[in-house]
C-alpha cells in the first residue's frame, strides 16, 4: 500500500491516513493541546504526502510520527510558552463524555495523568507518549524522535522519574488500589 501511495495513488495514501490518523491525532493532542491538535495532525498528513518519496522502508508509523513530532515541536516553538501552558490555555483534553466501559481509569485519574504529561519538557513528553501511551518499541520511538537508542533510554528514564515526582501522593494512592 505504501508503494502504491508512493507511485502517486491518493486513494492508497488515504488508506494509510485512515489507518494511522487516530494515533497521529492522539500524539498531537497530548503534545500541543486540543485547540491545535487538529491543525498539527492535518499538517502532518499534508507533509507526509509531499515527502512520501523520502520513505525508504521500515516502520511507516515511525516515519509518519517523525513528521508529526516535527509539526508539534514547530507549533510549540511558535508559541514560545512553558510546556505547562499546553493545557492551561487550550480547551481541556479530558472530554465530558463518560469513558467507555472497558477503560479502567476514572476520568479524574485520566485528567491527573494528562496534566502531569503536559508538564514534561516537550522531548520527554513525546518520549512517554510514543512508548508508554502509544506502545511503540524503543527502535520505532528512536525513528519517530530522530534520536539514537541511548537517548531514547535516558530520556524515557528521566520522563518517568519526573512523572512520578509530579504525580506524587496521587500516584501512591492509585498504586494501592
Amino acid at each position, binding site marked *: 500500500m505504501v508503494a502504491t501511495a508512493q507511485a502517486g495513488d491518493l486513494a492508497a495514501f488515504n488508506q494509510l491516513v485512515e489507518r494511522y490518523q487516530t494515533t497521529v491525532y492522539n500524539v498531537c493532542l497530548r503534545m500541543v493541546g486540543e485547540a491545535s491538535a*487538529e491543525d498539527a495532525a492535518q499538517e502532518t*498528513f499534508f507533509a507526509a504526502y*509531499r515527502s512520501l518519496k523520502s520513505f525508504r522502508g521500515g516502520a511507516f508509523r515511525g516515519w509518519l510520527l517523525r513528521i508529526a513530532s516535527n509539526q508539534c515541536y514547530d507549533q510549540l516553538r511558535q508559541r514560545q510558552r512553558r510546556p505547562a501552558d499546553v493545557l492551561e490555555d487550550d480547551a481541556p483534553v479530558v472530554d465530558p463524555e463518560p469513558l467507555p466501559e472497558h477503560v479502567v481509569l476514572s476520568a479524574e485519574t485520566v485528567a491527573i495523568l494528562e496534566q502531569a504529561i503536559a508538564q514534561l519538557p516537550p522531548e520527554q513528553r513525546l518520549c512517554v507518549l510514543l512508548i*508508554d*501511551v502509544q506502545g511503540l518499541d524503543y527502535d520505532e520511538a528512536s525513528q519517530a524522535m530522530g534520536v539514537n537508542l541511548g537517548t531514547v533510554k535516558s530520556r*524515557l528514564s528521566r520522563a518517568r*522519574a519526573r512523572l*512520578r515526582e509530579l504525580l506524587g501522593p496521587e500516584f501512591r494512592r492509585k498504586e494501592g488500589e
Partner: protein
Amino acid sequence: MLSPYVDGQTSLPERRAVEAHLGECDLCRAELADLRALKGLLAQLPRREPPRAFVLGPRAVRPAALSGAFSGFVRAATSIAAALAFLAVGMSLFLQG
C-alpha cells in the same frame, strides 16, 4: 537501568546485574514496582477519536494548494519567461529587418 529493564531493553549482562541487585535492595524493588504501575496507568489512557478524518481530497494535493508560496513563484517565473520570449521574438524581428 531500571527503566529500560522494565521494557526488556537491557542486554543480558545488564539484566543479570539488575536482577542480582534487586535480590538485595528493597528500595530498588519498590522503584521497580512503581515503574510497572506507572507504565500500566499510562497504557490505559483513553484513545481519543479525532474530531474528523484527515484524508486528503484531490483539490488539497494540487501543487497550487500544497504550497501557496511556490505557486506564486511559478506564476511570477511564468510571466517573466513570457516577457523574455516576447522580447526574444521582438529582437529577432528587429535583427531581421
